[in-house]
């Protein structure tokens, strides 16, 4: 399965397209899109595959970002070790939190996650202010070493690195969809009693899914930290809590390519709209309510339906002609 070109085709096309997009769109925008879509795929997986809605994703993002930032600010200079530390920190944090949260009913899960992100924000801003420097944030751009293969301090090479990392992350999630585990995730969303009856442990499946999704999110946080060269509690702030959920729903819940399409649209819209109106919340709220009320399948789903019906018409005409 993994060694067939057919399986890799979608990933190759998408990330080649994203790489080519760099010649048209500004580089900082593309970097933002790549990191943001890695950030969102965790939320997309949780909502679309496991049925967990999480408004607390910024908490996991911040854990990864601050773990990397602590290393680069206080201890070392190698960005790759920083990324690794962010990943491990995210894994440990997601595991501990997951043990507590995954047992909860989905309504409680959503509320507790949102509370968690508020607590993490508060901790970073006030409680741990001695080491996080509070609202000023940690600045360590000059601490990062230039590394031989991908020099992550240069935006253009960071972009290439993100293309490869993104392709790997998407391959992982595509692979998960194909495995028994992926099927079990979907089953625990749809009918957990039946799944338990067959002999699978709902708790283990949910915990694994939770840890995978939120480790990805923490990894995106590390990427953010290295790319921007600074971290501040603002990344978990009030106005950011809804970002991953909005992008997930905008792109299309549960679809593999939804996060990328959603991020492109969302980031683009934000960059364009913020020039005209500073009132971003109004637009986000409107998008959310509109998509939910119209029962839309999101941008990717719409595109998919269009292309399918177009294809059917084209091939249908061929058949009759």
């Amino acid at each position, binding site marked *: 399965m993994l060694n067939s070109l057919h399986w890799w085709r979608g990933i190759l096309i998408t990330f080649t397209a994203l790489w080519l997009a760099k010649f048209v769109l500004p580089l900082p925008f593309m970097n933002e899109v790549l990191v943001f879509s890695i950030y969102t795929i965790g939320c997309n997986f949780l909502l679309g595959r496991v049925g967990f809605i999480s408004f607390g994703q910024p908490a996991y993002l911040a854990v990864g970002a601050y773990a990397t930032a602590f290393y680069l600010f206080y201890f070392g200079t190698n960005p790759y070790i920083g990324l690794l530390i962010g990943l491990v920190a995210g894994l440990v944090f997601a595991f501990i939190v997951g043990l507590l949260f995954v047992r909860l009913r989905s*309504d409680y899960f959503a509320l507790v996650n949102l509370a968690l992100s508020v607590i993490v924000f508060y901790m970073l801003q006030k409680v741990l202010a001695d080491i996080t420097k509070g609202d000023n944030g940690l600045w360590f751009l000059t601490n990062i070493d230039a590394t031989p293969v991908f020099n992550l301090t240069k935006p253009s090479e960071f972009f290439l690195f993100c293309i490869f990392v993104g392709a790997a992350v998407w391959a992982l999630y595509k692979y998960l969809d194909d495995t028994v585990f992926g099927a079990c995730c979907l089953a625990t969303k749809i009918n957990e009693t039946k799944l338990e009856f067959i002999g699978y442990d709902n708790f283990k499946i949910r915990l694994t899914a939770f840890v995978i999704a939120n480790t990805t999110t923490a990894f995106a946080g590390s990427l953010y930290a290295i790319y921007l060269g600074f971290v501040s509690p603002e990344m978990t702030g009030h106005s950011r809590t809804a970002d991953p959920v909005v992008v997930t729903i905008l792109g299309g819940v549960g679809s593999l390519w939804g996060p990328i399409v959603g991020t492109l649209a969302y980031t683009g819209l934000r960059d364009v709209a913020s020039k005209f109106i500073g009132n971003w919340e109004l637009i986000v*709220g409107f998008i959310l309510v509109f998509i939910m009320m119209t029962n839309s399948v999101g941008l990717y789903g719409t595109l998919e339906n269009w292309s399918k019906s177009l294809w059917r018409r084209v091939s249908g005409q061929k058949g009759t002609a």
Partner: protein
Amino acid sequence: MAPRVGSERYGMTAQLLFSGVVFGLSLASIYFLISIGLSLCFGLMRIISLDQLLYYTVGAYITYSISTLTGNLWVGVLGGIAVGALLALAVERLVFKRIYERELTFSMITSFGILLGGIGVVKALWGVVPRPVRMPLDEQMNLFGTDIPLYRLSVIVVAALVYAGIWLFLNRTIIGKAIRAGIEDMEHVEGLGINAARLFTITFVLAGALSALAGGIYAPLIMVDPHMGLEILAFVFMVVIIGGLGSIKGTLYSSLLVGQVVSLGSLIYAPLAVMAPFAMMLLILLVKPTGLFGTPLSK
């Protein structure tokens, strides 16, 4: 000499403790007024209505506008309740009516969208600068040798009156009884010939009005700003989770508990104000995943 210093210090701590308890009670009043709406909406309609925090914000802003115009806070609070209730009615008619049947995540995302969009509108109407609301009763009242701001006491009295009112409404009126029965089993209530749609509307508007009332009476104690709803959100969630979603009794007890923990915790060590209730919530969820008075029902 030494014992006198000791007793003075003891007197000081007792006073501090007492004012801390009163402060905690006033916080609990606000938490209760908002979370009772959330809890009722969940219990009856099985929705999580995050937009309650929008009615809280709007209630506070209307109170600010009217009370600066007329100089009377209580007129402002009444205006805030009216606007909050009307807004809740509009949102219920336009949005929630269509999504009661959907799963829980659906109502949560939609109501979060309404909350964010509403904050955007509030920003456009009143600007982002925090606004102060003048406190009507700025005298201090001497209770057991401790000076307590009279206004904080009146906040507690208002909340207590509201609780009594809700209790009477739910236990003595037929609509209230229908709401209580609906929390237990909606299908049977409908079977008795009670109009479910009207029951839902009444509950939703009641919840919105109570949230707006909370915003209005809390406004003089804090600065009114567009993000006030998001700031109190975590505490309201903790109250609802600890008490158990859908339980009225649980909401009362847990708001009293969280109010005291926040207030007394911050007396000991300032960061405890936020950390302590969160830790308490995690502990309670470990023991009982549905909160103290929550029932293990699911949709």
